[in-house]
């Protein structure tokens, strides 16, 4: 078992002549949010990192106790605002498990479609910001960033025509989905993912043939399989370290078992492996969306009547933990119900939160420039870390 306390003792009070303590964040161009890393440097080499989180804490768990099952899904999207659909998904799954609500097949497929589109959008934002971390907002990184944003806009356009919002959706509701797809949406979606599919080839061409990109990512921030399992990281990080675990495959939910897709796994464990995993996940997500659109069954989109009041949904006493595979890994929600219209207690498990805890273990020994590259490859979203 890994002794976390022994491997990287952060020397906060050490102020010898050779070392320099530097704050990266909470206001820093590449912190991906309000993250503060206190790095101790010996020259250019990082010897210790102390990660400070909590600058974006908004009491989400307490907030959920004051909001009903009908209201909270829209708010749940604010925990991870880059992948809003995923958090909504986890919340309604937990409520449905306690209430034993059936979800119509059409609603399940719609959920899968939006969750995979969200994965594409989230990975696009990750790729852009990560390259910007390494390449600079005034360099080649910005070029890739703008390409990725261009494609992400298309996905957001799809969401906008579906729910009317571009960032925080409120698409999910207990028992199904709130909206059905409008006319022509399926065709627009097919065209969009076909375009993105071709653009992903361009990114790979641009990055994988680029010696500088390879030099910055290969062998940097290596997470061994054992370390990954000990720390409990999830998602592409875990799969980049050679662990074949994907909730969609291992514990299928919401009809994921109906679709034919593979779980990409890389064994190197470095930034490049994580990049490869995510690039393969783009393709798998596109394949899943295509299959779901092709086989989308007709029928109702919710097993429950349309909402007329916020306290309409009541679920019996009980508790449940539901988990979904978000773009960053396992997103879980744990609900304890006391039989009223609101949860008695609610707990979020954010993928970014557990992924972030790997940083102090892998960064020491790298150069300053690698700190941002490794941080970017972890893909943290601070709304989800602090909640």
């Amino acid at each position, binding site marked *: 078992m890994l002794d976390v306390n022994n491997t990287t003792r952060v020397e906060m009070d050490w102020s010898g002549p050779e070392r320099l303590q530097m704050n990266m964040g909470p206001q820093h161009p590449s912190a991906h949010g309000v993250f503060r890393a206190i790095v101790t440097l010996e020259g250019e080499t990082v010897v210790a990192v102390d990660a400070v989180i909590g600058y974006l804490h908004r009491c989400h768990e307490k907030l959920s106790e004051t909001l009903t099952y009908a209201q909270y899904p829209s708010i749940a999207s604010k925990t991870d605002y880059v992948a809003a659909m995923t958090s909504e998904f986890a919340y309604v799954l937990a409520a449905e498990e306690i209430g034993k609500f059936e979800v119509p097949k059409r609603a399940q497929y719609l959920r899968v479609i939006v969750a995979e589109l969200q994965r594409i959008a989230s990975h696009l934002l990750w790729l852009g910001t990560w390259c910007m971390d390494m390449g*600079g907002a005034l*360099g*080649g990184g910005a*070029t890739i960033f703008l390409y990725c944003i261009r494609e992400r806009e298309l996905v957001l356009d799809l969401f906008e025509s579906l729910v009317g919002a571009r960032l925080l959706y409120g698409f999910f509701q207990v028992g199904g989905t709130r909206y059905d797809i409008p006319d022509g949406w399926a065709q627009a979606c097919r065209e969009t993912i076909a375009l993105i599919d071709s653009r992903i080839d361009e990114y790979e061409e641009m990055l994988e043939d680029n010696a500088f990109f390879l030099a910055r990512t290969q062998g940097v921030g290596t997470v061994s399989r054992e370390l990954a399992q000990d720390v409990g990281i999830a998602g592409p990080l875990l799969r980049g370290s050679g662990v074949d675990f994907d909730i969609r495959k291992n514990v299928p939910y919401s009809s994921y078992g109906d679709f034919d897709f593979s779980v990409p796994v890389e064994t190197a464990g470095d930034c490049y492996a994580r990049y490869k995993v995510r690039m393969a996940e783009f393709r798998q997500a596109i394949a899943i969306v295509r299959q779901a659109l092709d086989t989308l069954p007709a029928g109702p989109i919710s097993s429950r009547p349309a909402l007329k009041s916020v306290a309409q949904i009541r679920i019996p006493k009980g508790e449940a933990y539901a988990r979904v595979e978000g773009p960053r890994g396992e997103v879980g929600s744990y609900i304890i119900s006391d039989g009223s219209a609101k949860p008695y207690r609610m707990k979020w498990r954010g993928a970014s939160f557990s992924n972030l805890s790997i940083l102090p273990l892998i960064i020491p020994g790298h150069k300053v420039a690698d700190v941002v590259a490794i941080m970017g490859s972890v893909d943290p979203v601070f709304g989800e870390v602090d909640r």
Partner: protein
Amino acid sequence: MNLVALPPWAPSVIAGFVVLNVVIGIVTYITLLERKFAARMQSRIGPYRVGPHGLLQPIADALKLMMKEDIVPTAADRRIYNLAPIVFLIPCMLIFATIPFAPGLGVADLNIGILFFLAVSSMEIVGLFMAGWGSNNKYALLSAMRAVNQIISYDLPFIFSALIPVLLTGSLKLGDVAAAQQGSLLKWFVFYPVIGQLSFIMFIVATLAAENRVPFDILEAESELVAGFRVEYSGMKFALIQLGEYAHIIGSSFLGALLFLGAWSGPGPEWLGPVWFCLKMVFMFLVVTWIRWSFVRIRVDQILALSWKVLMPATLVLLISTAIVVVWRTSAGF
């Protein structure tokens, strides 16, 4: 025929004044060119609102920088902090002194022109280091440390690759180097068999590093060091540093155009020479810009390794082989 009797120093002063102002004018508009070029690469439009097609954008930017509050950090070493932008700017402007824009048209076509250029352009490190040290900021300090590392490592390949055209010409005078390439396209040193192309590529890599451009912009490195050595500068001091940086890039582009692309040689009447020279400078600048907007930055240790393990030996070998070729050609008599 002198209508007005000018004192002997007057022509140099007037030429210096004109060149200085022209350089500042070029710098303001080359930033617009770069922004437009980058925008096209990134499927954007770029500056468009200020004036037709954003043509007045550089002036608006300059006015904005002039009106910004000038902040001096309380913990900064005030004298060094205030002096650094000027110390940085002066060498960047001085490099234009030796460049002949047409035969005989320049401030001072020194006998040791290229030596002067290389020596002065590496003086900018003093300003960089003063800015980084005087700001009393950890990011700036790290950046200054990197600056010293990088400039020391890349000066030698830069000098070696710039010396190859000198060897081929047999003169350190920039005017002579340019004159040796006149006449036909094939006389441009970039078309000199093998040696020309290799040294041109090495020259571009070395200038990228000497100019601190992506992928070698570890001094600025805004994703790690926020803005590096100039993180604490604002207003006009920031503008001076920016001006110096771009002047250095333009100066190096002129040098590249002069050493490898035949300077003012081109079709058309002789008075078109400076226009051709400027177009070649813009070409060099766009090559550098193109590289800037397509690569990610490499790490400080990789930059040093690239310099000492690859570029240094390669340029040295190339320099020696050029010398052998030149000696062989003179002894063989062609």
